């Protein structure tokens, strides 16, 4: 049961208030029609599923309803960093 700091509410709240929303930094391709089937499939279905420090999206479902970024260890579950979309993170491709 994680304790998550919502970067919008700036408060540390129980996981019950949030919902996980998948791997982060999977940008929707700019021009889907120009992609090969393989490239499109990679975007839709394939995931890094990283073991270790992992960037993911969470949404403050029962709070401000904002989506944000969380860097969390998928081994220890320790949360190392949270960021709002558009904020600079330690490894920020967005």
């Amino acid at each position: 049961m994680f304790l998550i700091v919502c970067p919008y509410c700036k408060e540390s709240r129980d996981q019950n208030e949030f919902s996980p929303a998948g791997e982060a930094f999977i940008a929707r391709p700019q021009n889907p029609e120009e992609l090969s089937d393989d490239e499109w499939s990679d975007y839709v279905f394939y995931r890094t599923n990283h073991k270790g420090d992992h960037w993911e999206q969470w949404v403050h479902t029962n709070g401000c309803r904002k989506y944000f970024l969380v860097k969390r260890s998928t081994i220890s579950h320790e949360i190392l960093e949270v960021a709002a979309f558009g904020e600079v993170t330690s490894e920020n491709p967005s």
Partner: protein
Amino acid sequence: MQKKYSWYSLLKAGLGNQEWDQAIPLVKPKSKYDVIIIGGGGHGLATAYYLAKECGITNVAVLEKGYIGGGNTGRNTTIIRSNYLRDEASSLYEHSMRLWEGLSEDLNFNVMFSQRGVYNLGHTLQDMRDIERRVNANVLNGVDAVVVDHKEIKEQIPIINTSKNARYPIMGASFQARAGVARHDGVAWGFARAASNLGVDIIQNCEVIDIEVEEGKVKGVKTTLGDIMADRVGCVSAGHSSVVAKMAGLRLPVESHPLQAFVSEAMKPILHTVVMSNAVHGYVSQSDKGDLVIGAGIDGYNSYAQRGSAKIVEHCAAAILELFPIFSRVRMNRQWGGIVDVCPDACPVISPTKVEGLYFNCGWGTGGFKATPGSGNVFAHTIAQDKQHELAVPFHIDRFTSGALIDEHGAAGVAH
């Protein structure tokens, strides 16, 4: 050859006239094998067994980073059924079911497959439509299935709550009589013993740290016990499939999630069948030891830690009480989590890859245990022939590119 298990051998051993053979002999890895199987869970061991038994390939090593059966094989709620919706899935699971039905004899090891039947409950009109659809599909596919109404359920399971005033009243169910449960550890050990007996090396505490690929072909693996060569490598490392794939430079359409389960303290038998409800998110059976074995849902986040959130199990306890209010004063004895890799269409990948000689069997999500013999069987043939077994064809990884998904969501709902 190992001595057979029988009444006679038990008698001799009891009288002190016989020593048992090692079911899982301690062996050192050779430097080269015909086939390496990464992962000593049920599926991996079954693959090795069928490679040796049906494909004539006995120079096989199963590499297990911990102890065999220590992953999801030993962590699941052991439900076995084949009443899947889609033809592709139902054929595969029914293949597995038929193997289950002869497995103890085949392995000379009682895996305690117990065909006590499985009820999949329906609580809404749409649930019942889905159940009708699935049961009819099952019958057409030669899978035993019937739809029962709430009165029939109550007759068979008198302790279940069929009150119309329940929050999710039970309207009916599908019932598969041949479905049931088995002893999960026994499955791993039975396959391991039988595979060893046929010459397969089962090497525990041997972690694969890299896969050697040259010019698009697999050459072998690097392990904590040294390098081992093989032209063919089958990866059956549920939970960690993505990690193993990465060693060969591959990505997979799977994500790893914790799946939780718990057991109660052992009581005298009161629940004689298996009850599953997707709508309330819980499934329960009572083991031969007497404990209620309960499966909960998966956590939505990715994780490689074998633990999940309290809210999942607590909600599941509430769900079980919806179905069985009499269990309120029964105590949870132990809870745990496994790491399942989940495919987007809730169906597995049993497939060759872009690397020649490298095969993956993964993505079983919450439904892997019941498939153990079938999965191992078709995967063994797939590796041996370098061509997908007929039943494995729909489970090719390319379906995520072509779009030929086998969407079991309609039938599977939240969890199996």
